[in-house]
C-alpha cells in the first residue's frame, strides 16, 4: 500500500522553496518527484535586456552562497569572447576570493549537515568559525556576500599588505579548528552512524545520471573542472582532486572536509606568490559576434554558462546551468528505497542551492488519495528517534 507525501514549499529544513512529492510504503520511499518552479525568476530573459556590465550584477544574484562562481564564470566567458587577457595579479585575486568562497560554503554545509543529523552544537561552533571567513571577505571586498569584485577584464579592488597579513593569520586559526571538526565529524560514533550508508549512489549511476561536484567525487570519479579545464591560475597552483569511495553521505562529508584543507593550502600559496602589477585591463563596450562556453568549479559542482553575442552591447543569449540542477536526477535515484527519515539528510547532502537551479513534503496516501502536510521538523524528529536502530530497519519489509 503506497502513500504519497508532499513536502511543500515552506519547510524549515532547506531555506528555499521546493516541492517534493514522495511515494512511501510504510517507512520506505518507493518513488520521488520534484516540483521546481517556486524559485524561477526568469533571469535568462532579463539578461537579454541588460548590457554586459549590468549582467555581472544580475548573475551575481542568481545565488547568494556561490555568487562569485556565477560572476566569474560569466566574466570568463565574456573575456574570451572579447579576447581580453586579464593581468596576473587580477587573476590571483579572483582565485583568492573563489577559494575563500569555497571555504565559507563548505563550512556552511557542514553546519547544516550537523543540524540535520541533530548535532546542533556542531552547527553553532562551525558557524562561529565561519564568521572569521566572512570578516576576511568583508575586509577584501566590502561586503559579506555578493562581493562585486569582478569586472570584465579583471577585478575592481586591490589587496594591500595588511589584508594579506590578516588573512594569513586567520588561516592558522581556521586550520586548527578544522582539524578538530574533521576529528569530530569522522570519529563521533552517533554522527557517523547517522550518515553511513544513507543515499547510496553507485559509480555507474553517478556517471550516467550526469551528477557533478562532491556528489560525483564521493562515488570515486575524479572529475573536477579545476583540473580538467583549468581557468584563472589553477594550472599554476598545486592541489589535488579529493575523492572518496563510500558513495554515501559520509563520503560526501569526507570529500568536503578534504577540499577545505586543499583550499587552505591554495590560499597560502596564492598569498605568498602574489605578483605585482595592474589588476584590470579596459574592456570594450561591444563584443564581436560569437559564442562561448564557460565552465567553473563552484563549491557544489560544475557551473556552466553559454554566452552568445551578436555584435551589440547586450548579449543575445545567456544560458546558465547551475550545479544543483545537475544533481537532481541523481537525488531522485538516491531517495528511492531509502527511509522517510533520511529525506532531509539526502537532500542536504547534495548541498542544494535551489535558487541556483531554477531560476514542503506532501505525503499523499496512495490508498485513499488524501493529502496530509507533514512539517519537516516532525520528519527530523522522527529521523532522530529511529536512527539508533537503523541497521535492522533497513532490511525489514514493513508488513502493511
Amino acid at each position: 500500500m503506497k502513500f504519497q507525501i508532499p513536502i511543500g514549499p515552506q519547510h524549515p529544513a532547506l531555506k528555499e522553496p521546493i516541492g517534493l512529492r514522495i511515494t512511501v510504503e510504510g517507512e520506505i520511499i518507493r518513488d520521488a518527484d520534484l516540483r521546481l518552479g517556486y524559485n524561477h525568476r526568469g533571469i535568462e530573459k532579463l539578461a537579454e535586456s541588460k548590457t554586459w556590465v549590468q549582467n555581472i550584477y544580475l548573475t551575481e544574484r542568481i545565488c547568494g552562497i556561490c555568487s562569485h562562481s556565477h560572476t566569474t564564470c560569466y566574466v570568463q566567458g565574456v573575456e574570451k569572447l572579447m579576447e581580453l587577457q586579464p593581468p596576473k595579479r587580477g587573476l590571483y585575486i579572483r582565485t583568492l576570493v573563489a577559494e575563500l568562497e569555497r571555504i565559507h560554503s563548505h563550512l556552511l554545509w557542514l553546519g547544516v549537515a550537523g543540524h540535520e543529523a541533530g548535532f546542533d552544537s556542531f552547527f553553532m561552533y562551525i558557524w562561529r568559525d565561519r564568521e572569521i571567513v566572512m570578516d576576511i571577505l568583508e575586509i577584501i571586498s566590502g561586503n559579506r556576500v555578493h562581493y562585486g569584485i569582478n569586472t570584465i577584464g579583471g577585478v575592481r579592488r586591490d589587496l594591500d599588505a595588511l589584508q594579506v597579513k590578516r588573512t594569513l593569520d586567520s588561516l592558522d586559526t581556521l586550520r586548527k579548528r578544522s582539524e578538530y571538526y574533521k576529528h569530530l565529524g569522522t570519529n563521533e560514533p552517533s554522527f557517523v552512524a547517522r550518515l553511513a550508508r544513507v543515499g547510496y549512489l553507485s559509480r555507474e549511476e553517478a556517471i550516467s545520471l550526469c551528477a557533478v561536484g562532491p556528489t560525483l567525487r564521493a562515488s570515486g570519479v575524479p572529475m573536477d573542472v579545476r583540473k580538467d579545464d583549468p581557468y584563472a591560475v589553477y594550472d599554476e597552483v598545486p592541489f589535488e582532486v579529493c575523492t572518496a569511495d563510500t558513495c554515501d553521505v559520509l563520503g560526501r562529508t569526507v570529500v568536503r572536509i578534504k577540499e577545505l584543507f586543499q583550499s587552505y593550502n591554495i590560499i597560502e600559496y596564492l598569498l605568498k606568490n602574489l605578483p605585482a602589477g595592474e589588476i584590470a585591463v579596459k574592456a570594450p563596450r561591444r563584443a564581436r559576434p560569437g559564442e562561448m562556453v564557460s565552465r567553473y568549479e563552484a563549491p557544489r559542482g560544475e557551473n556552466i554558462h553559454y554566452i552568445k553575442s551578436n555584435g551589440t552591447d547586450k548579449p543575445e543569449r545567456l544560458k546558465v546551468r547551475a550545479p544543483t540542477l545537475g544533481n537532481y536526477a541523481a537525488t531522485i535515484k538516491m531517495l528511492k528505497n531509502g527511509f522517510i527519515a533520511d529525506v532531509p539528510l539526502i537532500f542536504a547532502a547534495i548541498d542544494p542551492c535551489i535558487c541556483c537551479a531554477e531560476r514542503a513534503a506532501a505525503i499523499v496516501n496512495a490508498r485513499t488519495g488524501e493529502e496530509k502536510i507533514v512539517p519537516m521538523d516532525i520528519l527530523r524528529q522522527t529521523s532522530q528517534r529511529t536512527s539508533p536502530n537503523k541497521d535492522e530497519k533497513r532490511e525489514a519489509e514493513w508488513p502493511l
Partner: protein
Amino acid sequence: MLTKLTRWSRLKSPWILHLNTGACNACDIEVVAALTPRFDLERFGVLLKATPRHADVIICTGPATRQMKDRLIRIYEQTPDPKFVIAVGACAMSGCVYRGAYNVIGGIDQVIPVDVYVPGCPVRPDAVIDGVVKLLNKL
C-alpha cells in the same frame, strides 16, 4: 491587568517563522547567521519555529514569484493573530534586480501587508536584529 501581562509576554518572546519566497538565499543565510553565537538573536527571546501556526512574526525574504503567491497568502492566513510581517532585503521590498521579469510580481507587499522593511542586498545580521527590536518597540 491581563492585557498588560499578555502584552509583556508578547514583547518578551516573539517566535518567528522564516519564509523564503524565491530569493537568492543570501538574505536567508544572513537571517540564520543572526541566530548563531556571534549575533545572537535568541537573547531577545526569539525562537525559530517550523510551522506558521506557532509563529508571531513572519520574516520574509525574496521577491514574490507567481508560483509562490497562493502559498504565501495561505501561510499568512494560517498564522494566528496578532501577527506581524518583516520584509527583509531589497527583493522583498520591491524586487531588487528582478523587477520586470515575467515570473516576479514585485515585492511581497503586493501580496500581504508588511509592518517593517529592512533594506540591504543582502541585509547584515545586525540590521535584522535592529528590525526586530524596532518592531518590538512599536508594540
